[in-house]
């Protein structure tokens, strides 16, 4: 169980790891029950010892700290990108894909992607779902196809992840807070936080920052009349907890294209879709984001 716990800390959003950890947890509880039943008389003697009560008190105090999550504890949890008792679930059906994310009982996020007429179940398209902060930095990948060619097929998502990892690396090297090292794209927008919890579960709704849910989808070898292989398409929606909406449809933004920026560095930009696109436009019928926020 300790092993699966460490694994879950590093990979908190993997359903396999969480499932394994939950299973070992049940086994652990069963073993404890057997242990108590087997050693009931000697265990009673333990409670006469003050040290045992001290251990119990420390355990309760630590439990309360992790439940309340004051800033130092939150910082420790933040190292894993975890949001506390978060659980996510990705499900693929004939109708499409459903991603559920429940970071707390009062905040349930669900992304329902319905497949379109050109979606192939035999050779499903590559797909990535991620969150970006208000300065357009990747802050968390919610889902990415496990196929080996996913990064190449989903270049915009890969570019965003790379940018985020570079920023993290630079921050670690300099020993600075990430927000201090990554320049805002413009004076018009301050750098957003890089902690997903600040967006998804803001402590103060009035000071909450908007974030974007992004999808990149690409069907391999899908030609159109004017394109040998249609590039991936990007959909997005902006979520603003300050002005909360229960249902939001993701909108088609465009397709990514590689270019050189003013510093002569390679980057990916999004361009409006034009008449050259055909079947790629029908990979997704619609993508609905539902957020249930209970008070």
């Amino acid at each position, binding site marked *: 169980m300790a092993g699966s716990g460490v694994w879950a800390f590093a990979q908190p959003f993997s359903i396999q790891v969480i499932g394994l950890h939950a299973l070992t947890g049940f086994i652990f509880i069963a073993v404890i029950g057997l242990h108590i039943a087997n050693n009931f008389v000697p265990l009673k003697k333990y409670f006469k010892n003050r040290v045992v009560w001290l251990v119990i008190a420390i355990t309760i105090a630590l439990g309360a700290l992790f439940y309340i999550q004051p800033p130092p504890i939150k910082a420790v949890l933040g190292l894993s990108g975890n949001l506390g008792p978060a659980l996510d679930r990705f499900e693929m059906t004939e109708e499409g894909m459903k991603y559920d994310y429940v970071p707390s009982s009062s905040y349930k996020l669900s992304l329902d992607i319905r497949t379109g007429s050109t979606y192939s179940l035999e050779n499903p398209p590559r797909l990535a779902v991620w969150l970006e902060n208000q300065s*357009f930095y990747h802050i968390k990948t919610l889902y990415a196809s496990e196929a080996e060619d996913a990064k190449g097929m989903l270049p915009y998502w890969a570019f965003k992840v790379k940018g985020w990892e570079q920023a993290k690396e630079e921050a670690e090297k300099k020993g600075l807070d990430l927000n201090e090292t990554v320049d805002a*794209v*413009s*004076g*018009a*927008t301050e750098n957003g936080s890089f902690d997903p919890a600040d967006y998804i579960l803001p402590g103060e709704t009035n000071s909450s920052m*908007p974030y974007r849910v992004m999808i990149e989808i690409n069907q391999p070898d899908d030609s159109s009349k004017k394109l040998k292989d249609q590039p991936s398409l990007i959909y997005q929606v*902006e979520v*603003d907890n*300050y*002005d909360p909406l229960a249902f939001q449809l993701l*909108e088609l*933004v*465009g397709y990514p294209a590689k270019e050189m920026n003013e510093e002569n560095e390679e980057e990916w*930009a*999004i*361009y*409006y879709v*034009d008449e050259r696109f055909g079947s790629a436009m029908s990979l997704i019928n619609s993508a609905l984001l539902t957020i249930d926020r209970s008070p």
Partner: protein
Amino acid sequence: MFLTCKENLFFNHATLMADKKRAIADRRHFLQSSVLGAAGVGLAVSSSSSVAVAKTDEATIKPEVTNEVDVLVVGGGTAGTIAAIQAGRAGAKTLLVERNFQLGGATTTGGVAFPGLFDAWGKQVIAGIGWELVKESVELDGGKLPDFAKVPRSHWMNQVHVNQFVYAILAEEKCRDADVEIAYYEFPEAVVKTDAGWQVDCIGFGTRRRVKCKQIIDCTGGAEVVGMLGFERLREEERQPGSYLFQLGSSHDPASKQLHRLYVHGADSTNSRTATLANLTGRQSILAKVRKDKKRLMHLQPETGFRESYRIKGETLITVQDYTSGKLFDDAVSHAFYPVDLHTKTGVRPKPLKRGTVPSIPLGALVPKGSRNLIVAGRCVSSDRLANSGLRVQASCMGMGQAAAAAATLAVQGNTTPSEVPLAKIHGLLKKHGAIIPGKA
């Protein structure tokens, strides 16, 4: 008839509120007289705490310069510059009166040298003379124009960065080429209706100018001429903050690097007193920052960039529903495109328009209700506050300036008033000068 008054100038809120009340009373007084004047006329500001200025009719109306023109453009800012060039190019004898020392307004004097937005959803929606000026400024400065086929990550990324100095001089050149006469350091003191149109007395230091014109285009930002004439204007109790632009620490690199900025809360361009207060407050805050950051002040714009003051009550009022739904008005003359962008004390949360939405501006929103031979352009467009927070940006104001001038010029030629000019004629003239007409692309 002119007012005589005493005024103590103290820069505190209480005094300003009292001034506002007095100004309202003054305006009521004016409206009873045959000669209409600005609420602030006769008030004087000096370093002494109390100044009395007495005027006689004779002293006031004796001009040193007289002009007889077809179109008088008041205000040489974002909209006024374009309006003057359009009127001149369309053959109207045009005079442009500007109270400051250069053209461009918010783009140059305010330092908001990144006009936008000219595009929406991958296509250019505002072009014409404003775009021509912006494009040439960028090209002359060796800059780069945004690629409108590219999706901006955020709305402001397709603002066009111009060199404010180049822009101002190029605007003057284009006015000169269009035979537009420019009168800096002057502003209207009194406006009288005549059989042929208007008689406008302007004042500048050492200059009293009498202008006889057929049409007035009010591009003052706060619809000052409209207010002088007693037409209804709209204003909120609270103004959006202004922005004072400056550069601390490193040198200002025009058109490639954005300046630093700070909010000037309560910044109000309603009159010279409130504008003075805004500038004093803004500069004092910058000085405090210089002291705190211990960095050199490398650049400072001459004045605060103001976001709102008065808006006209026009024949048509653009509501935020009209704006966000992209309503195509029957008498649409230009486009607008920007999120609903209301700045508050705590900042701004722009509300982007829904995909595909491109708002339009009707001619009726440029015509003060019940007026003749008078039209406005710019941020004083007839609109509710939220719609105005999106309409007030530079590209939209340029589009309005060109449309207002086309209507005014055609009104001169047809001996009528702008709202009675056939819409097809306005569209035709605008198209001829490169503008994009809503619904006609």
